[in-house]
């Protein structure tokens, strides 16, 4: 039973480790071992980015700003005012002052906003140490903006090190308490959640998550998505707001730039980030003007914009503004853009049908088949109407037959459904 004895000796004292080897030696060995592993995983420790060689440049020489001190410490603040008369892309800054708050509320789907003034809004955009979220990601640069009646003010709160985050957050907190709603681009799923987390980590109250929030990403996708390659703010600027950035830093490079800054304190590393962030905030402001503008649609020439209007009509329907939506749809039904006209007619006819306004529905369907006797939707609806409401089987039969005779493009399901209808109609006519 020597194995038994051995086992007891081996396993009896798991808790107390026998004579730990010399720690420093072990650490040295550890380094070697980890280095071996790390070498096989190149992405782990990224080297400093090149391109900023030569003499280090102070932050103050790259960005004009001041150190701010409060009860929670210090941070670096850049304050800027853009006069109302300036332009940003195809918009003028002063257009913000005429922001229609009811429409802003509709876009945000936050009724409360309708009762506020445009100066109550706080635009917000953050630059962070990572995109994956989680408690290890901080917002090292918080860009905010608001309209004060005469100018659009932007402020950028920069934590020059992790230790300055708390003071910056406290400053943001004070400012947010004076505002009544928030405007961001993708802030609902990113910036605000991340800042809430930072407030908790710094044991500060979170003033942001209680504010009504207009996140421009979702309405932009809804109203403009059909003509954008993607819904990034940069793309919208270029395609919709008529603004093109020069030499903008790609978002993916931002975290590493900040980590490099922490080690080298070279202002050139973060200069681009300040500019990128400032432009984001201003573009959000003009995008808000643009989106609310779309809701006040007046017949436009450009066919492309008809699609925007169709998207607006859909949004209005979702928000329960049926009369307004109908206004849009009626005028879009005359659009030269066939796709838009068709879709507008379809939606409009269904609204009328639901309200029992058959005359109007039938008018629309008939108009739809005037240009196209094989308009499947219109034919089906008309055939249903003829069969079930008018008892005019002959006409229904006629309509359906026309489609089946000319409709070589029908899908199997469509053909089956029309054939089924045809057979039934034949039986009824025969009776």
């Amino acid at each position, binding site marked *: 039973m*020597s*194995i*038994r004895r*051995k*086992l007891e000796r*081996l*396993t009896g004292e*798991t*808790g107390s480790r026998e004579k730990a080897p010399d*720690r*420093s030696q*072990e*650490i040295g*060995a*550890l*380094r*070697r*071992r*980890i280095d*071996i*592993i*790390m070498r096989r995983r190149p992405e*782990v*420790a*990224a080297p400093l980015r090149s391109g900023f060689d030569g003499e280090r440049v102070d932050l103050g020489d790259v960005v004009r700003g001041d150190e701010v001190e409060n009860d929670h410490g210090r941070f670096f603040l850049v304050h800027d005012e853009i006069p109302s008369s300036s332009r940003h892309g195809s918009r003028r800054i002063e257009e913000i002052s005429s922001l229609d708050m009811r429409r802003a509320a509709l876009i945000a789907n936050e009724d409360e906003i309708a009762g506020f003034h445009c100066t109550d809004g706080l635009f917000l955009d953050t630059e962070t*140490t*990572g*995109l*994956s*979220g*989680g*408690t*290890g990601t*901080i917002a090292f640069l918080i860009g905010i903006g608001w309209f004060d009646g005469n100018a659009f003010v932007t402020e950028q709160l920069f934590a020059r*090190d*992790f*230790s300055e985050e708390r003071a910056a957050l406290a400053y943001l907190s004070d400012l947010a308490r004076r505002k009544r709603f928030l405007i961001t681009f993708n802030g609902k799923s990113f910036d605000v*959640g991340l800042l*809430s*987390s930072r407030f*908790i*980590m710094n044991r500060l109250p979170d003033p942001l998550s209680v504010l009504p929030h207009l996140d421009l990403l979702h309405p932009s996708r809804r109203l403009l998505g059909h003509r954008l390659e993607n819904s990034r703010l940069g793309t919208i600027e270029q395609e919709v707001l008529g603004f093109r950035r020069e030499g903008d830093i790609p978002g993916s490079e931002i*975290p*590493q730039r900040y*980590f490099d800054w*922490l*080690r080298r304190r070279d202002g050139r590393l973060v200069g681009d980030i300040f500019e990128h962030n400032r432009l984001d905030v201003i573009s959000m402001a003009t995008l808000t003007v643009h989106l609310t503008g779309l809701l006040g649609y007046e017949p436009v020439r450009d066919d492309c914009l008809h699609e925007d209007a169709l998207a607006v009509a859909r949004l209005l329907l979702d928000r329960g503004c049926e009369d307004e939506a109908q206004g849009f749809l009626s005028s879009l039904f005359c659009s030269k853009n066939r796709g838009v006209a068709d879709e507008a007619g379809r939606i409009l006819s269904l609204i009328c049908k639901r309200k029992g306004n058959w005359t109007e529905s039938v008018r629309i369907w008939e108009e739809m088949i005037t240009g196209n006797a094989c308009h499947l939707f219109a034919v089906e609806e008309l055939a249903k109407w003829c069969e079930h409401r008018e008892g005019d089987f002959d006409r229904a039969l006629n309509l359906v037959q026309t489609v089946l005779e000319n409709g070589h493009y029908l899908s199997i399901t469509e053909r089956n459904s029309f054939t089924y209808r045809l057979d039934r109609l034949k039986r009824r006519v025969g009776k």
Partner: protein
Amino acid sequence: MATLAIEELVSRMKSNRRFMENVTAMREIPSNEGTFRPFPEWVRPEIASILGKRGIKQLYSHQVHAMESVREGRDVVLVTPTASGKTLCYNLPVLQRIMEESETRALYLFPTKALAQDQMHEVHGLIGDLGVNIRTYTYDGDTPADARQAIRKQGHVVVTNPDMLHTGILPHHTKWQKLFTNLRYVVIDELHVYRGVFGSHLTNVIRRLVRICRFYGCDPVFICCSATVANPREHAENLLERSVELIDKSGAPAASKTFILFNPPIVNRELGIRQSALTPSRKIAADLIGNDIQTIIFTTSRLNVEVLTKYLKDQFSRKKPLGDQFVTGYRGGYLPNLRRKVEQGLRNREVMGVVSTNALELGVDIGDLEACIMAGYPGSIASTWQQAGRAGRRKGHSLAMLISRSSPMDQFIVENPDYFFASSPEHCRVNPDNLLILLHHLKSAAFELPFERGEKFGNENIEELLDYLEEKGVLHRVDDRWHWAAESYPADEVSLRSINPENVVIVDTSNAGDHQVIAEADWDSAFTTVHDDAIYMVESQQYHVDHLDLERKKAYVKKVDVDYYTDAMTYTNVRVIDSFETGRHGNLIAEHGEVQVVRKVVGYKKIKFYTSENLGYGDVTLPEKDMHTTSYWFTIPRDLLSNLPYTQAEIIDGLAGLAYSLHHLAAIILMADIRDIDRSIGDKSGEWFVRHGRDKRMIIAGPHADQDEEGVRTDSFDPTIFIFDAYPGGIGFSDLLYREHEELLTSAGNLIRSCPCAHGCPSCVGPILEVGTMAKEVALAILRLVGRA
């Protein structure tokens, strides 16, 4: 035909001489009356009343003990048998507290999603009966994104697993503010599962949990439950790093049980071959099931589950038409709904026989079975008792039977029944300060909350490690605090379990228009089970694998009906990266340290059903997989071997035989599962290694060498036998083996010398079909050379 009750069957076995010839021990485990206590006074009458309606009018003594301790805020570990009402020990105090203070939160950790689901249903049941508003949710990878927010804010009881705590909860603790500020109870069930690497990780996850709790100002009570292991209290204290009260006197009644150890007869003395454990398992299981005795058969591999399920299905379908569910398989890899169906079938006795891997060993609710057959030693004494506990719970008689295979471990257990019955089960070991594991968790912890100077994390002075991480640019120090300063999400970099979290889905393309996912395989086992041309079996239906698409993580299979199955052949190559310690023992040099292990599946064998005849071979081209781990090894100088009067092929066979017995003995010495360690023969540089070819063993230069290349002579390298931890990063076994080097070699000498076989058998140097007829003799000669035999 009238059916026999289990007592009658057992007494018939006893009087069957041929059967009893193979029984090495038969023990009667008496029933236990149980010790009952009334509900503690503080228990709300509503709770007592709904339990009363379920037939629980009073509690077992251990339940009262546990509840009182928890109530008084003491951390406990509860070690009582299956079906002794462990879950009530934590559910009652938790629900009571939530009813008293509605903000109270509790976190339950289970090692698998299935157990978490089970537990959630149990708590739901209690809450439903109570008619109170206590919200219980599971939170794991399957939780829909839109439900997560509600769970984080409103869940009173959150049931999850350590992996989710590690990657999904702790790194986002601010979203769980409500939970962490009100957390009163942390329940960790199946504590014994957390040993080795998994346990070392868990300890670090607990360190992180405690750290986050401290940030939110809470100090929860820990309630742990464990199967019987040798050191439950110590293990709990190692995992939690705090003192814990042990409750191990069960007050639950238990049925009497007959426990049989069965050694299948030797069918070929010359070759030392015993009848396969599957054969008696099949016969006895068929006899039991045929007598309406609900039986579970545990096998040691997924493949055996399928083979045995097929045998039993064949047998019963011959007699009479039966439901498809009458006998069924169960293992990881079956889709969840199929598994739920089997569990349900077991509870309502539609399934009368189930063949399972250890997947059913843990507390998945499958009701009370009457008989348990273990086809092969499960690898540890604790697992054996746990599996045996699946049969017979509170009343009546039950049967448990261990049928041994030919391996040295199995043989040791059945031939030494006193050792088995008297021995305490295994110790659970963890090594949370394993530097690599610790480093991973330090990163995750820094991500969760900056480290302060002087802060403790485990038993180590972590400042040097923090400095190291700062140097590497993932941490940044300012004002004596270390902040996470990298873009990555450190919790994603490490999986708590040794297996790769990736899965391969198996798609049945038999019906061209209707492809169906029939199973999944984890990344590692996919290489050996669903390689091109493999025969894959689910529920004993055979499928031919047309193509394994690793990129898309899919294996395309078609239904077939053939008379064989396939068994993959792999090779293993070990290269030393760093030697931690070196010791000279006579003319041998023993070492332990870090190694790189490369494995590759090179081909497969076709094996005929029932006869196990080898029908042929096929090649497999799959990428190799490599792993860093720790190993113990020793090198035999080539000059020494050149004095032996054997050919180089015979010397290689001898080394292989020696490695075989060392591998098995190491598992016994470590009291570890045989699969926790592995072996390889090569040289330290990784330049040469020994590989099993189609018909002979050969030395190959480098892992990429051609299979048919001419073998290299033993005298061109110093052969080294590696016994390594089968988990990335190592579990710390190799250090222990290094210290037991002499004992290990002496035991191997004793084992091989005293084995009654002629030329070698599975109980000493391995089956001679694998190691050749000279292995035994040469292995002994080598041991004599080094003074161990």
